[in-house]
């Protein structure tokens, strides 16, 4: 203590010095603890920030603006033998014209027609094809509005800006207000977003195709990686002799777990596409690449899970005469399977969110029809997000965020399942 306060007068008792030092140490202790808490809180803050920024940008995409049009399906517009060939665009134009009869100018007419989505004629066409009895009558139909109108209704276009700096002109704003006054403009639940594939028009774009693609890809991944991963883990943990070959396998697995995912994409490009000649953009190839990527994760988790089964269980089984194989499959496996499943779910969640390797194997594609099998061209949710994030139309920003919300929801469910499994079946020996 002398060197701490060498000039201390003798009246200061040792206990005071100790107490002072103790206080200082306790303060340091508190500081350190607060630092730890601050670290955790700032990580959580980032999480919160990420979620709020995405939700606040994306929630509005779950509703979509529709316009109510009274469409007259006049008999002479249709040729019964060729229903698909009728001029559905003309029907819509006519009904808009009847709402705003004062519009005469050619330029203005174009602007008026621009209020309705270019997908509307196809919606009408589908209606007529499924029910020909409506020919000759007049029906009121809600058709999707153009993305600019949608953006205005959601307040994402500033209407006080000067006309030259707006995508919607003053006259169009007038019409929109008129439609709103007649209750012909309404925001409804955006069913299109969940029931259709990709589109160049934001108001017609949906995530069904990408979701189906993700599903097929994940099924392939799961069917291949779970059995193979568990089998390798069992072999390495229970049967493998200690030799160079097994060491090599182990080093490989541990290393592959940390190899950048994009490298797996290069592998898929060279091996599955160029060497085996599998079709581009197919969920089968995506699944194969993601299998190779997730295998190490599953193997490592499964091995940890097998390791955590205490040796006494094995010894007891061997003691009553079970073979090595029987011991493993009848006694160790049932105790280790929850841990293996947890690892698999986490691996699957990673595969669901992965996009970099898929960029290399042709899954960055414009695909409208949802895939019907593992050999049909498909894209997956994360790649769809990547594609939309690059589109110039402003309405795609909220749709990108909405697709992210959907993807995150899937991931949360999977992670929650893993956490549940772990807490439900985790045993401390």
């Amino acid at each position: 203590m002398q060197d701490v306060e060498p000039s201390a007068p003798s009246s200061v008792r040792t206990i005071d010095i100790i107490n002072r030092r103790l206080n200082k140490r306790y303060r340091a202790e508190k500081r350190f603890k607060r630092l730890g808490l601050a670290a955790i809180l700032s990580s959580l803050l980032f999480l919160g920030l990420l979620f709020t920024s995405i939700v606040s940008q994306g929630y509005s995409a779950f509703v979509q603006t529709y316009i109510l049009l009274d469409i007259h399906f006049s008999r002479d517009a249709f040729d019964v033998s060729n229903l698909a060939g009728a001029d559905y665009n003309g029907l819509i134009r006519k009904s808009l014209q009847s709402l705003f009869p004062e519009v005469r100018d050619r330029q203005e007419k174009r602007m008026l027609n621009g209020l309705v989505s270019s997908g509307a004629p196809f919606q009408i066409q589908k209606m007529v094809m499924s029910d020909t009895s409506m020919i000759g009558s007049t029906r009121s139909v809600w058709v999707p509005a153009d993305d600019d109108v949608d953006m205005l209704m959601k307040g994402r276009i500033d209407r006080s800006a000067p006309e030259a700096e707006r995508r919607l002109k003053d006259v169009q704003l007038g019409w929109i207000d008129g439609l709103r006054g007649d209750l012909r403009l309404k925001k409804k639940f955006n069913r299109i977003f969940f029931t259709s594939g990709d589109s160049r028009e934001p108001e017609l774009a949906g995530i069904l195709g990408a979701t189906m693609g993700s599903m097929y890809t994940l099924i392939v991944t799961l069917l291949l990686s779970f059995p193979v991963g568990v089998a390798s883990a069992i072999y390495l943990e229970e049967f493998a002799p200690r030799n160079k070959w097994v060491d090599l396998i182990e080093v490989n697995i541990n290393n592959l777990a940390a190899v950048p995912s994009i490298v797996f994409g290069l592998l898929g490009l060279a091996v599955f596409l160029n060497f085996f000649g599998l079709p581009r953009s197919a969920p089968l190839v995506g699944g194969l690449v993601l299998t190779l990527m997730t295998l190490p994760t599953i193997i490592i988790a499964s091995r940890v899970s097998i390791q955590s089964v205490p040796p006494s269980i094995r010894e007891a089984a061997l003691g009553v005469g079970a073979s090595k194989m029987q011991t493993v499959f009848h006694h160790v496996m049932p105790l280790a399977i929850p841990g293996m499943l947890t690892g698999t779910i986490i691996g699957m969640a990673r595969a669901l969110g992965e996009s970099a390797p898929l960029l290399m194997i042709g899954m960055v594609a414009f695909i409208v029809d949802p895939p019907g099998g593992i050999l049909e061209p498909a894209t997956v949710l994360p790649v769809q997000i990547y594609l939309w994030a690059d589109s110039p139309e402003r309405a795609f920003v909220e749709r990108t965020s909405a697709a992210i919300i959907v993807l995150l929801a899937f991931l949360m469910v999977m992670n929650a399942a893993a956490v549940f499994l772990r807490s439900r079946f985790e045993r401390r020996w």
Partner: protein
Amino acid sequence: MKKSIVVGLAAALCVSGVAVEASARDYISIVGSSTVYPFATTVAEQFGKATRFKTPKIESTGSGGGLKLFCSGIGTEYPDIANASRRIKKSEYEQCREKGVKEIVEVKIGYDGIVLANSKNAPQMDIERKDLFLALAKSVPDPANEGTFIDNPHKTWKDVNPALPAVKIEVLGPPPTSGTRDAFVELVMDEGCAAFPSIEALKNTDKDRYKSICQTIREDGVYIEAGENDNLIVQKLNVNPDAYGIFGFSFLDQNTDRIQGSKIEGKSPAFEEIAAGAYPVSRPLYFYVKKAHIGTIPGIEEYLAEFTSDKAWGEEGYLTDKGLIPMPDDERLRFADDVKSLRPLTME
């Protein structure tokens, strides 16, 4: 018993995995340039909705990657159509022929203007290509010493040409991997340096040096290589009124509320000017069709008909809404005719 069920099921799964019957492709497969991608996808979507055929699959692989895939051979595993933001090269054409892709139909779909734009908060600039060359080239002719070259000393636009504003030169442009950059070099830099007799003289004496002077863009931080995401460039121009950006016309078209295109040689990059061919910096866009696949892959002819119809690539067609600059009427007619008769491309 349980075990045998597991074995049986696992085996059945394995087999059914392999047994997905490989069938012939019944949709059109398109690859190629990211510049043509927005136009091709729009047509494909219309085509898929309006006909009984499936919607084509369109991959954005870049012109070179697309043509490479396209030229790999004939058969359903290879794409039917390749989009390109430049004309097919002779080497690529020969590669195609080598692999048996003998007959290719070339379709020019229109033009894409390359614009130099800045924020609306700053005045519009009117510039000549030779001044752009002086502002952006790595080495420029030494004004004091005829026939020699010095590292580009110009700091402000006024240094380049006294008529231009005294604003620091700062240009955000595409990286070397991009087709837009290649086109910019060819249409602006090459043309700009042709205005200097001292460089022209090099053309005959030292061709390599001539090219490297004309085509190398300066690297001292004045020209900033920005990402492929042109939306970000637009945002950045918006906050920095001194900066200029180089990108495709469609991004200018989508953001007319925030940015303006500079006049080049007195012509502003407006829709009409580019369409009339007056605006000097515009490049043609193409796609290439494998003739052998027509009749084998369902729908190719109908897709071509949709693409070359007036309602798509015409002057008021839906592609112009996406930023495509249509060809003049006679050129359009000629290409539509070529498509109808499926006249194969010859390259000598």
